[in-house]
Every structure is written in structure tokens, then in C-alpha cells.
């Protein structure tokens, strides 16, 4: 060791930093400013769309941790989200607890439900694990429709009052947007920290080579369970926010179909990367919005096709896009982005 410790610590610190150059700080600051000012500059449904993207992002981040980082395939993320929505919803609707309590409890409830599937992941892998997590979907729907009506409302679902802090209620689109933005920012930061520290490396070790992970002292069983626990916790938080956003919770809001979309977002964005989860959630969500806007207009121009057909066709197109990614760019958009970034970094002096 020739260099003094201080110099080393400084460089290691730089190694670990997420944002390194002044330009990156500028971009980041600009991005944050746009998010903060969106209610004032956004047109039309921008705020509503951004709110839904924020909620989706939290659920997709969780799925990224479970499936992309720790390699445990999960087709039940939407059911985990539903558990969070119902737990928070029931406490808010029946007992009138504050959202400061119900949202974390929603997360924990989903996490415990999810961890059960982590236990299953010890014995089964890949395709069979996927099938097992699909079962979560059916257990969830069945339970919510059959459990006592005083708890979860059965087929009628739950109706919530807006989240409130004293006399301040999150009862407008703009207000709930800021709530979702704050939580989404926190959860994104947390996911980044997690993946840069011991737990994140253990996840990737379990994903890449579980034998080698055992041999260096990683308890593979524990980390598989933890991956489901944390991923479902994210889903639960997302579900609870959803409950306060639409203020109505019902079992058929959380379908297997939604879980599949979440996986699609990961594939398009890029498996195993936090930035990939963000890109995937934003891009696919915006495309879906585009379809709901453009669909009726196309149907207007070509009435012979009929609205139903146009809508179905465009969804198929989006599904096709995901398949294209699986085949041609399995590393996702984040990989493209990294290539652009690299060439930009060395820009005046390309090799």
C-alpha cells in the first residue's frame, strides 16, 4: 500500500457515487425541477398520468429487486400489490387509521405474503416458481372475495376517505401527485442503496451462481426469502398508494395480466438495473396512455374497424414490442442508454 488512506477513501467514494460529473448533476437537477413543477406546467392529464407512473414504478422497482436482481421469477407482483391495497384500505376504511401507518403496514402485509413464496423458491426454480407465484394471484382474489364482508367488503370492495394530515387532505390530483412523488423518490433511492450494498451483491450472487454464493458464506435460503419480502414490500407500498389515489379497492384491479405487464416493463427497461426499471415503467406506461388516447381517434378515422378492434390491436402491438426486446435486446433500453452515455463521456476523444 503506497498511497495514504485518505486518498484511497476519496477515490473509493467516487467509485461508489451515482452522480459523478457536473453535467450529470445538472441533468438530475433539471429532472427534479420538472417533476416538482409538473402540476404547474403539465397540460391535460399529465399529473394523473405521472401519478400512475409513480405508483407503477414502485411496484416495478420491487419486481426488479426480486426477479431482475435476485433472479427469482415472480408472476404475482400485482397480487402482492393488492394485499397492500387491501391492508391499507381496510385499516383506513374500517378503523380510520392515518395513512402514515396504513401505507407502511400495507407494505409489511404484502411483504409477509410475498415471503411465503420466497420459502417456496428454496426448492423450486424457474418455470415452476413462476407457476407457484401465479397461484398467489388466485389465493389473493379468492381470499378477498370470501373473507368476512366487514373486513374487505367482498365483491363490493372498500371505499376510502382521502389520506389526511390533520385538516390537510390529499384530495386533489395535485396533492396526491406530490405524495406519490415523495414516496416514489424515497423508494427509488432505497433500491439504489440496497443494490450498492451488501444485500444487493448477495442478491446478484444468488442469481448468478447460488453454489458459489453458499461457498463464500451467503445464506442462499435467507436471501431468496428476503428478495421476495422486499420486492413484495415495494408492491404493498404501491398498492396502498393506489388505494388512496382511486379511493376504492377491489380484487379485480389486481390481475395476473398486470403482473405480466410489470415483467414486460422490466424486459423493455432492462433486467437487473434500477435505472432499467425506471425506464421500462415510464416508457411502457406512456405507450399505454398513448393507446388509450390514440385508439378512439383511429377508430373515428376508420369506423369500419370498430373501437374494440383498434384497442386490442394496439395492445397486441405493445406485446409484440416486448417480444422483440426479448429476442433482440435482452439487456433492455438501459443497455442502449449506457452505450450512448459511454460514447458521450469519451466524446472529444473516441478511440
Amino acid at each position, binding site marked *: 500500500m503506497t498511497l495514504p488512506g485518505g486518498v484511497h477513501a476519496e477515490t473509493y467514494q467516487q467509485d461508489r457515487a451515482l452522480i459523478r460529473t457536473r453535467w450529470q448533476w445538472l441533468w438530475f437537477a433539471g429532472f427534479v425541477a420538472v417533476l416538482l413543477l409538473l402540476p404547474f406546467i403539465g397540460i391535460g392529464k399529465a399529473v394523473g398520468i405521472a401519478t400512475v407512473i409513480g405508483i407503477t414504478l414502485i411496484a416495478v422497482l420491487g419486481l426488479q429487486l426480486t426477479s431482475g436482481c435476485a433472479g427469482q421469477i415472480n408472476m404475482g407482483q400485482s397480487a402482492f400489490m393488492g394485499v397492500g391495497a387491501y391492508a391499507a384500505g381496510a385499516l383506513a376504511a374500517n378503523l380510520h387509521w392515518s395513512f402514515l401507518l396504513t401505507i407502511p403496514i400495507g407494505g409489511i402485509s404484502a411483504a409477509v405474503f410475498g415471503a411465503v413464496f420466497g420459502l417456496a423458491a428454496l426448492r423450486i426454480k424457474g418455470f415452476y416458481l413462476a407457476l407457484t407465484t401465479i397461484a398467489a394471484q388466485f389465493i389473493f382474489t379468492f381470499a378477498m372475495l370470501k373473507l368476512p364482508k366487514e373486513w374487505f367488503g367482498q365483491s363490493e370492495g372498500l371505499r376510502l376517505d382521502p389520506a389526511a394530515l390533520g385538516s390537510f387532505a390529499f384530495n386533489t390530483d395535485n396533492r396526491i401527485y406530490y405524495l406519490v412523488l415523495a414516496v416514489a423518490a424515497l423508494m427509488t433511492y432505497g433500491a439504489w*442503496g440496497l443494490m450498492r450494498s*451488501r444485500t444487493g451483491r448477495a442478491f446478484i450472487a444468488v442469481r*448468478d*451462481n447460488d453454489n458459489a454464493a453458499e*461457498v*463464500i*458464506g451467503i445464506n442462499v435460503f435467507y436471501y431468496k426469502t428476503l428478495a421476495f419480502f422486499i420486492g413484495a414490500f415495494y408492491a404493498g407500498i404501491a398498492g396502498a398508494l393506489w388505494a388512496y389515489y382511486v379511493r376504492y379497492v377491489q380484487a379485480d384491479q389486481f390481475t395476473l395480466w398486470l403482473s405480466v405487464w410489470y415483467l414486460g416493463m422490466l424486459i423493455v427497461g432492462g433486467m437487473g438495473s434500477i435505472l432499467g426499471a425506471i425506464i421500462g415503467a415510464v416508457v411502457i406506461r406512456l405507450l399505454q396512455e398513448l393507446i388509450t388516447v390514440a385508439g378512439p381517434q383511429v377508430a373515428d378515422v376508420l369506423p369500419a374497424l370498430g373501437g374494440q378492434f383498434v384497442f386490442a390491436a394496439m395492445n397486441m402491438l405493445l406485446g409484440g414490442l416486448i417480444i422483440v426486446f426479448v429476442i433482440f435486446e435482452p439487456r433492455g433500453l438501459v443497455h442502449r442508454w449506457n452505450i450512448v452515455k459511454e460514447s458521450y463521456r469519451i466524446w472529444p476523444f473516441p478511440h
Partner: protein
Amino acid sequence: MPELAAAPELAAVPAPATAPIMRADGITLRFGGVTALSDVSFEIGASEIHAIIGPNGAGKSCTLNCMNGFSLPQQGRLFFREQDITGLPPHRIARLGVGRTFQGLQLFAGLSVVDNLLTGRHMHMKTGALQGFVYRGWAHAEELRERRRVEEIIDFLEIKNIRHKLVGSLSYGLRKRVDLGRALAMDPRVLLMDEPMAGMNLEEKEDMVRFVIDIREALDIPVVIVEHDMHVVMDIADRITVLDWGHVIARGGPQAIKGDPAVIKAYLGAEVRR
């Protein structure tokens, strides 16, 4: 060559020179009808380089698998510093201080060299999921602290210039070096190496031999090495255990093994079998 200092806790607890660090007592391992090991016993002394040799399929890898808990022998017991470790899961045995490298490549392909080595520090780190989530403070401080030990190992293995590369992009020889680095990052009390030089060119082999000798010197730990290259084995081993068809057929120093008729017969027999 940069110096690799022994981990503090290792230096503090010197093992008695007489007691074996690891001991196998009559282990028998079967897979269905195949008996991979039968009644195998041996001792690994403090800070010796102990080679395990034998023809293909003799049971060398199976022996290492029993030692680090991958396989559970049907009979016999294994001891680490006189603690019975038979039946413990691999991660528990690893935490006692049994480090291991693999036959072939078993790295974490999605991580950089530094992160592979930091993963090797896993059992010496304490950051939990919640601290990782918060990151600032505790987790960050631990990252920097552990990074220092990892950098020592990177220096020692002369892989400074590739530290940020994804291991998937490295040559075979370098990957084997990272594999060794990850095991060293555990600060092991004994190091098991399964054919560390297989598939390497002469230069890479020489480097690896140098590392094995230096590890024993610098860390004062025993190294158990499975190797086919007899020149290497005769050069560096203090003691050799020879396996054939799952039986120990000879044990002793290199000179004794070289002239042992049973060993010569096993190797000649293996030639004929092939």
C-alpha cells in the same frame, strides 16, 4: 510483489502447530450405486500445502465437496479445528473459515471484479437490508472500509487495471485469479483449490503457482490443492494424498509418492483404461 498482510483476527489466534486444521475420518460417499469415496481419512496440518491427486474420477472433487459441506458423506466425520462440521450447510462451514475455489468458472458474471471480491467479504460485513436502503452513514462507511481490504487483495493478485471490468469480459486466466481473490477476501483459515491451473498456459500457471506459495507464506494458512500437473504438485506440495477409485492408496511427501508402486500402477492403469 505486493505484500498481503494476514487478516488481524487470523494473526491473533495462532493454531497450535501440532493439531490438524482439518481432518477427515473415514468418509464414504455414495451416489446411488456409485461409491465416489470409501473410507477416506486424511489430516490437513497447519500451514502446509497439501495436494490431493489421482486419475480422472478418482474422487478428488468429491473430497473437497465433503470438506465444504456440498456433499454429505453417508459415513465418517469431518472436523475443522477439532469441531465436528459433518452435516453443516456450506455457508456455515464457510463462515468458520473454509475458503474454496472451483474447478471451472464459478464467478458472479453480472458483477465487476471489485464487486466479486466485495461479495467475498460478505461474512465479515454487517450491513442489513434496512441499512442498505438508507445507505448514507453506516452502509457507506462499511463499503469504504471493506473496499480497503479488497484493494489489498487486488494489489496482491496484480489485477489493479481490471478492477472495474465485468468478470464476464475477462480471459480465462484472469477469471481464475478473480476466483482466487474472492476466496481470499473471505480471510479463510484454510483454502481449498480445485484444479486452479487446469486450462492455463505456462505463464498463467507460473503466476498461479507463485500466488499459492505466497498465500501460504503471507497468511500462514494451509492450502489444499487438487491438481493434475505432476511437475507443479511435486514442486510445491509438502504432503500428498493419492486417491484412486475413491480409496486413499498412498500418502506422504513428494519423494515418497514419486516412487510409490501403488501410485505408479494407478496412473499407468488410468492410461490403459483411457
